[in-house]
């Protein structure tokens, strides 16, 4: 029973991981940027929801559209006016720029909100679904459901709409897309905005579960990076599966083995997948390689 409980709570954790990782994956897949400011964007979402909650008492779940919207605008503008400049530069240049961006954002957060640790605890935090000796807190179920819901929405958008198709076209082959009259710069800004918006939503979800301070973002970037590589760049299903697998593995190690090895697990899994299947679990040919050049 303990094992089942631990596995289920790992699955729920995987939902949040998936939301974070997919936002990272969209940006990477479409613009080719490994966004080292990803964690900072998640934190902006978290702080925004926390701030609204402190100001008005609003439930963080209700602020998801707002934090996603805020980050969409920030992301769109950043890509359009800053990151677009290095889109054809070497990988190292893009890393340097997003690394610097990360520092700027973290320091803005430090100025605005100080280094004190924050968290939002709603009165219903202890309410849980109890079935046959299992106990799943509603907050976690909600986070899982919202995270997967957002991912599904993103999937629909990408496959059913014209601009979604344009984004996919640019991801697969920017030159061919351009010959078809797609404005690649606008599309990249749109994709970055969507990715950032999803990061903002993930930040709000994170704030509903964990504590955070301006310096805690980098671990999210790391985790997202590992999950995207595990699942395969460009594969939404792969990312979700990898996120859930990682969540369950981490939980099993912490709950039944040695919690100290928790982080080692994700990196061992990454190492194994890179050796055995460099494209990741579900990695296709396109997205990764279009950008590998």
């Amino acid at each position, binding site marked *: 029973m*303990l094992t089942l*409980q*631990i596995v289920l*709570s*790992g699955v729920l*954790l995987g939902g949040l991981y998936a939301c974070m990782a997919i936002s990272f994956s969209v940006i990477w897949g479409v613009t080719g940027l490994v966004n080292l400011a990803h964690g900072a964007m998640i934190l902006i979402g978290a702080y925004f929801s926390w701030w609204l909650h402190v100001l008005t008492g609003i439930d963080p779940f209700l602020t998801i559209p707002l934090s996603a919207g805020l980050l969409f605008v920030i992301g769109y503008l950043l890509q359009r006016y800053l990151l677009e400049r290095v889109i054809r530069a070497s990988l190292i240049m893009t890393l340097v720029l997003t690394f610097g961006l990360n520092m700027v954002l973290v320091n803005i957060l430090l100025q605005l909100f100080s280094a*004190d*640790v*924050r*968290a*939002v*605890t709603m*009165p219903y*935090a*202890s309410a*849980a679904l109890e079935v046959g000796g299992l*106990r799943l*807190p509603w*907050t*976690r179920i909600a986070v899982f459901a919202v995270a997967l819901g957002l991912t599904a929405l993103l999937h629909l958008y990408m496959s059913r709409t014209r601009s979604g198709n344009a984004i996919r076209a640019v991801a697969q082959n920017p030159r061919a897309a351009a010959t078809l009259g797609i404005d690649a710069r606008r599309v990249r800004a749109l994709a970055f905005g969507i990715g950032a918006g999803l990061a903002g939503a993930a930040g709000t979800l994170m704030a509903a*579960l*964990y*504590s*955070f*301070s301006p310096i*805690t973002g980098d*671990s999210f970037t790391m985790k997202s990076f590992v999950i995207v590589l595990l699942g395969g760049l460009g594969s939404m299903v792969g990312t979700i599966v990898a996120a859930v697998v990682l969540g369950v593995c*981490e*939980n*099993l*190690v*912490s*709950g*039944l083995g*040695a*919690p*100290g090895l*928790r*982080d080692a697990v994700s990196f061992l899994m990454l190492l194994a997948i890179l050796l055995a299947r460099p494209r990741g679990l579900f990695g296709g040919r396109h997205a990764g390689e279009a950008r590998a050049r």
Partner: protein
Amino acid sequence: MFLAEKASACPARSRRRAVFGVAAAILSTAAAWLPSAHAQQQPTITFGAALSLTGRVSTEGRQVKVGYDLYVEEINKRGGIKVGGKPHRVEIKYYDDQSDAATSVRLYEKLINEDGVKLLLGPYSSGITFAASAVTEKYQLPMVAAHAAASNVYARGFKHLFATLTPVDQYTANMIRMASQASPKAQRVALIHENALFPQAAIDAAERQAKAAGLEVVYKEAYPTGTKDFAAMIEAMKARNPDALIAGGYTGDMIVLARQTSEQKVPLKMIGFTLGPTLPGFVEALGPRAENILEPVQWTSDMPWKDEIFGWTAAEYASLCRERLGRECDYHPPQSTAALQVYQRAIERADSLDPKKVRDALAQTNIMTAYGPVRFNEMGQNIAKGMSVVQLQNGKPVVVFPVEGAKARFVYPMTAR
């Protein structure tokens, strides 16, 4: 008309004011010279300290200086320290280590070699004290530190290092005592700590203390720094059915731990964290779920201690300190003041300023300060003063242990969360 008159009067007035200003400046310079001329007649004891007055830990570093200065002002007001029948003025030579251990080492070398200081006071933080005390040990000069709780600072067999604060391996002792004295006893104890030096030392000690008190340690695990989610650990812990949880780590981790024990409804009777509940953000982050959580603290103004040198109670000290700092003082200043009082007693007892004799007298220290009693073990740690324990009650930390200083009754078992 009136305005014009006023305007024309202005230059004359400001000239006059300038003359006054110069005169006042000359007078005040002369006045400033007077006491120091006087001081040259009176022998002086000079202590040396490099403090973190700028940089990462400067907030704490400045508080240390407040504690040192409070003592210097008071003792000089009372005629100074008597050595060989003659009262000596007290002075402290300060430097700023910029919160950096390497700089601190350089500055202590400078204090000893260039400024000729023989009696050293400690810097701020375990890490910097660790480095700086190696310098004083090398020159075989005493250092009375006030701000290094990590046990590795004292585990090097140093003979010249002493510290007024309660060391980290005593942090949990009183919480374990409370667990074993509670009724019904908190028999089954779970221990969780971050995989970092300080929390590990505290929680390892808790395990020893719990076993010595006849309690059962049913769960003990470390988690890596940066862990965000404790759900799995808490499930595993819950399955062992603990009565008490004692944990140590970063404040953010403790917030999540407290919340998740509530999410998973672990029926705990008491929760104690080595750090967190009294820090800003903890109560705000957890709301009612922070209620009744315990934290050991070095000192509060509620403590029943009365200084044997100046006659200050802890409360009186707190109000003096508040005047000086401009806000409520935490344990940093009294812990610093105590370091100088320890020195004073040792110098008086040795009746000498010879660092060797002072060192031997320091080892025999047994005094009461507003910060609490001070007595050193062979490693130089203060073993006389335990940690007080505060409990969050209605969102405010109140002392509940030891009972003599307690402002409120220990709420046990804690309210259901």
